[in-house]
């Protein structure tokens, strides 16, 4: 890291329970490490896997086919307006996979990098953050598939697509709060290693991935939005499919508050536990 000369004169005091005053500055100083770790995670992701990056395409495509068949054909649920059902499913699948993989990878990242944590100092937040970059790369690949799908179905996305980057950030934020909490708990209690896959599996059922959230009865909608993934998926569909997939704003506000709450809780517990990670990992 490049450190300016005035900073090299600064005194570092190590004391029990002392909170690092320039935590954010420290994070900034270690940005090189963040980039390098993200690059490492991305480049080893598909090494020695025969299909390589094809996995990033196959997972959502196969899931889309199954969901289209079950919800669209067997259960005969309605799509959004006249949007083809596969496109509607895929537009929900994209953010769901992003949320799920950030949650899954980031919450395991500390334990996966146990060796680094016990041997060097760096702001530990870099580890889950860098592992989220991998999920974003996968997301970009899956998004490429969506573009092809739109061409195949001759589907023109609406102008709201310009807001998509905001919703991508929102999707990462939704997952990152709980991920920080679970990652720090996982260091001490490995029980949480078993909790995360369960959460993700469960989350798929209670999120409107295979169907439109408009099929949820009106009186349950607000409650349904306690799951912040609902607002992410609704937001994505609004961006990609147009105003027919209208956002249910009270629910969206609720989802946003839940996300902010978890970000605060996750960050707080991460900061609190961070200083003793090396002792327990």
């Amino acid at each position, binding site marked *: *890291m*490049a*450190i300016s000369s005035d*900073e*090299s*004169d600064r*005194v*570092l*005091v*190590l*004391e*029990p*329970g*002392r909170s690092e005053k320039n935590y954010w500055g420290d994070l900034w100083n270690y940005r*090189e*490490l963040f*980039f*390098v*770790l993200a690059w*490492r995670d991305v*480049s*080893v992701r598909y*090494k*020695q896997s025969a299909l390589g990056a094809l996995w990033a395409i196959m997972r959502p495509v196969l899931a889309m086919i199954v969901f289209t068949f079950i919800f669209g054909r067997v259960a005969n649920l309605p799509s959004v307006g006249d949007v083809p059902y596969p496109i509607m499913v895929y537009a929900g699948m994209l953010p769901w996979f992003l949320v799920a993989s950030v949650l899954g990878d980031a919450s395991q990242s500390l334990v996966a*990098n146990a*060796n*680094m*944590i*016990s*041997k*060097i*100092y*760096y702001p530990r937040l870099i580890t889950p953050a860098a592992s989220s970059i991998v999920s974003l790369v996968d997301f970009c690949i899956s998004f490429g598939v969506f573009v092809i799908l739109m061409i195949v179905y001759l589907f023109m996305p609406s102008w709201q697509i310009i807001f998509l980057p905001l919703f991508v950030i929102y999707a990462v934020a939704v997952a990152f709060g709980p991920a920080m909490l679970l990652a720090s708990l996982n260091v*001490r*209690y490995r029980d949480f290693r078993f909790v995360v896959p369960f959460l993700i599996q469960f989350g798929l059922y209670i999120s409107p991935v295979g169907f439109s959230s408009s099929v949820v009865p009106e009186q349950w909608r607000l409650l349904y939005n306690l799951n912040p993934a609902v607002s992410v998926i609704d937001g994505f569909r609004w961006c990609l499919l147009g105003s027919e997939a209208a956002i249910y704003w009270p629910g969206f506000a609720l989802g946003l508050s839940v996300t902010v709450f978890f970000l605060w809780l996750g960050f707080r517990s991460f900061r609190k536990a961070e*200083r*003793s990670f*090396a*002792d*327990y990992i």
Partner: protein
Amino acid sequence: MSDIAIKVGGLGKKYLIGHNVERANTLRDQIVQSAATIRRNMTRTFQGKQILTGAEVEEFWALKDVDFEIPKGDVVGIVGRNGAGKSTLLKVLSRITDPTTGQAKIHGRVASLLEVGTGFHPELTGRENIFLNGAILGMSRAEIRSKMDEIVAFSGVEKFLDTPVKRYSSGMSVRLAFSVAAHLEPEILIVDEVLAVGDAEFQRKSLGKMEQVANEGRTVIIVSHNQGSLRSLCKSGILLQKGQLVMTGTIDEVLTRYSGETNISSSAITDDGKHGFAFTDFRLDSALGTIRSAVSGTPCEMVVGYRADVESTPEITLGIGVLDAFGNRLLHLSSGDFDQVLSTSPEGEIRIALDRLPLAAGRYLINFTVNLDGNRTGARFHNVPGAAVIEVEQGDFYGTEVTGEFRQMGPVLVNHRWSQ
């Protein structure tokens, strides 16, 4: 700017350890114990505390009330036995873990090297791992790029730079990792026992690099068990024992004290004896007192402690074999060669004086052979192979003041002259 690099006051680090007091003998006891452990761990989890295995919990202070100051530009060796708290101290100073009590003030940019090749990824190539490891140690990409050639040349793995590290031999990856670390340029460098990697030639190279770093006026803190390299690298030393600071001083003072302390506890020989004769102790005495490692070319005395049954074994002759690590006998010192029969006492010591220790730096094995019937042939013998290990340090055997890692390559030294 002050002249102090590191100031440590009242530093302590506590760990909680769990252990089983008694083994459960029956399934019922085992279930009861397990249930108690699970219940305790559930409670501790809800209180946000560490979970522990075992039935009993104990506090353990890995460091306690440690105070010292390290001036800028000093090269300090931290010495102590296993479990003395050396590594914990380094972990606290490199911010990996928080102290439980006290504080440490650090002036300047710290880089720590507690392990060679932290973060190395087997799937990545050598070149990629240089960037990865460099970033982990705190170098910027620009910095690594500018030093790439140097790092590669130092490691000697040029040909395999674009091969995944998992195809490397362990020696190669260790060399690559050390080369990255050797090119760090922090103000304070913390190093833990990493000089002992690679083959002999690479070790010499690494030591040379460390000497260079030390001479550049950086503050360096080293933990090593290699007394020879500590003596040649460090100016001052810190001796730790059971988590507490025993002394600070020049590296020579600290190492002498340390050698004396280790000797007392580690010299006990396990010999159940034969025909009423048993060896109890072996040590080296020098002008400085009891030492564990003798310096090549200095006067010293071998001291053999024994117990004997005077009635059955009134007289003996003693032989001391000095062997190298491969079991080759290099020297054999025998009282028989002097036609000297030693009379025994119930508990006694035999001293063998050497004017100048004729061994080069290294570890040597000591064998005892005793003829229990004095000097008569066809007698009763008692052998104790591998009775003790002595460590010899580099010294100026020839009195020429020419030393260095390349000198004194053979194990046995003999005085001689050159002419042409």
